[in-house]
């Protein structure tokens, strides 16, 4: 091994070389970037905190517990859809059909229970199957035909809306006609001075479950890896298509739970409800710091994102501003959030 001394730094110098290079990168700005990069929920948490303080100062009623409880109820449906959306966006996809799937599932549940007289648990199970089937269709088209998720879900969005209207004949099922279990998610129970809705608790439990799965299991890590770099994930031995398929199925199941929450929240199942819910869910995910390019973000950020939108809408209306300003504020928030994401991604050398 005579060539050893001719090239390369000597063995002792090599370690300091690497150390030096590594420490060089720790400038104050890149340190902030690294923190944001590692904890994508930090910036939405700050935004939420500041928004709550500012709106609290603007209007006394804002920080009352009844109002805060109302905000959580208002975000519960979008909050659930945004969980499904987060899963898809983490794989560098996007799901335009989340709202439509949820409405379809809610109509199936309501119709089966009210018009066909099926027991409530069976109707809910059917709703879950509808959610899974919709997820399977999206996942199948994305993995087998290699179509872009945007196109696939744009198509299925229209299909699901049409199927919903055909199936329901455009008729709304009122909550008063449903078995109690279906509207249970809309019921509230007192916690001290404030009433908490069951739907909000279900939403929070779902966030805890998904955060656990994404953060603590191999499947969760593979979801990030697939979204980050599909080819790298494949070469590392990850079955990319299986992961993608399971993500779409999981999203479908989450959406079925969302359908249940929606029925409770609105005390009805309407085929015309929440067509714009898909955009609201994307808004929550993006404001929550999850990258549309995949592989980066967390469901906690998404919860914060959903709360930020809820707080802005509620706070601005309490401040007496026109509804148009709420929309304007949300638009500005989206652009800010994506700009921050782009800046964080520039970490790459």
């Amino acid at each position, binding site marked *: 091994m005579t060539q050893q001394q001719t090239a390369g730094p000597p063995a002792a110098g090599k370690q300091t070389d690497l150390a030096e290079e590594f420490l060089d990168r720790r400038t104050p700005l890149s340190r902030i970037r690294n923190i944001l990069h590692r904890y994508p929920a930090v910036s939405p948490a700050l935004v939420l905190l500041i928004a709550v303080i500012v709106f609290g100062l603007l209007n006394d009623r804002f920080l009352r517990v009844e109002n805060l409880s109302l905000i959580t109820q208002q975000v519960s449906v979008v909050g659930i859809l945004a969980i499904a959306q987060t899963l898809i966006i983490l794989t560098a996809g996007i799901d335009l059909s989340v709202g439509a799937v949820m409405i379809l599932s809610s109509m199936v549940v309501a119709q089966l229970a009210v018009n066909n007289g099926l027991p409530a648990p069976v109707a809910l199970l059917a709703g879950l199957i509808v959610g899974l089937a919709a997820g399977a269709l999206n996942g199948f088209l994305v993995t087998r035909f290699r179509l872009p998720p945007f196109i696939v879900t744009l198509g299925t969005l229209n299909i699901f809306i049409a199927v919903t209207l055909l199936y329901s004949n455009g008729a709304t099922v009122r909550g008063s006609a449903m078995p109690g279990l279906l509207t249970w998610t809309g019921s509230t129970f007192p916690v001290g001075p404030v009433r908490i809705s069951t739907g909000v608790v279900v939403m929070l439990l779902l966030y805890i479950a998904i955060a656990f799965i994404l953060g603590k299991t191999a499947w969760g890590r593979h979801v990030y890896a697939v979204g*980050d770099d599909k080819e790298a994930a494949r070469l590392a*031995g990850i079955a990319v298509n299986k992961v993608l398929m399971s993500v779409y199925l999981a999203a479908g199941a989450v959406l079925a739970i969302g359908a249940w929450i929606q029925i409770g929240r609105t005390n009805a199942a309407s085929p015309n409800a929440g067509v714009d819910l898909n955009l609201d869910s994307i808004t929550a995910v993006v404001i929550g710091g999850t990258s549309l390019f995949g592989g980066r973000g967390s469901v906690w950020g998404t919860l914060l994102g959903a709360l930020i939108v809820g707080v802005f809408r509620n706070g601005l209306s309490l401040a007496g501003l026109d509804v148009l300003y709420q929309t304007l504020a949300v638009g500005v928030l989206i652009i800010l959030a994506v700009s921050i994401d782009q800046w964080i991604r520039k970490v790459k*050398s």
Partner: protein
Amino acid sequence: MTASQLEPTGTEVRQPILQARNLVKTFGRVVGLDGVSLDLYPGEVLAIIGDNGAGKSTLIKCLTGAEVPDSGELFVSGQPVHFKRPQDARVHGIETVYQNLAVSPALDVASNLFLGREERVAGPLGSIFRVLDTKGMRRKAKEELTRLGISTLQDVTVPVENLSGGQRQAVAVARAAAFGSKVVVLDEPTAALGVRESNQVLQLVRDLRDRGLPVILISHNMPHVFDVADRIHIQRLGKCAATITPQSHTMTDAVAIMTGAATA
């Protein structure tokens, strides 16, 4: 791991770790490999060079399970093997570092080292709830990097994209070394790197060899090849044109054989 192996000095009878016999691979009417044989001995760096289209990549793909040869035989430690997928080669202790690195930029160093073979915590928490042993994997990642002499890369929780090109390559090589119990294959490991970073990677290759792990190195870079290789397999037109050593031939000779201007 196999600590002290026989030195590749040549005269005594040695058992090759990886053997290929008369590999043939055609793509339609194009002949990628036309009966190529190769031996890889313990503790050596075998470089594979050749012009574009000479069959380097095809050869490597056949050795690592990414392609299935039409005919020919493969032996690992003397036992015949048939690789249908990259996973099959992995099971036999052959790890590959692909040209595009195959690391996930947003995941941290430890997660990347264990990507695709994560370890779970012991007990019901791991078997039922499938909780990852993040701490254990980080500790093992740190140990592996220390073993490879990258001990100053202490923070294994840094996302890979925050690292320089050389460091990323080091992570990819470390992953191969950690799991490749028999052979590490490096496809153009220095292609995208600067001078200093290339030297770091070449030093890693030497360290692997010094630990007894044989390395197959594919490179276009003659100085790098002559720097670290013990033997050089020259591919030309789907065949092995010659197997030389840096001592027996010069770079000019190698290029001449590669282009067909000379024979060995």
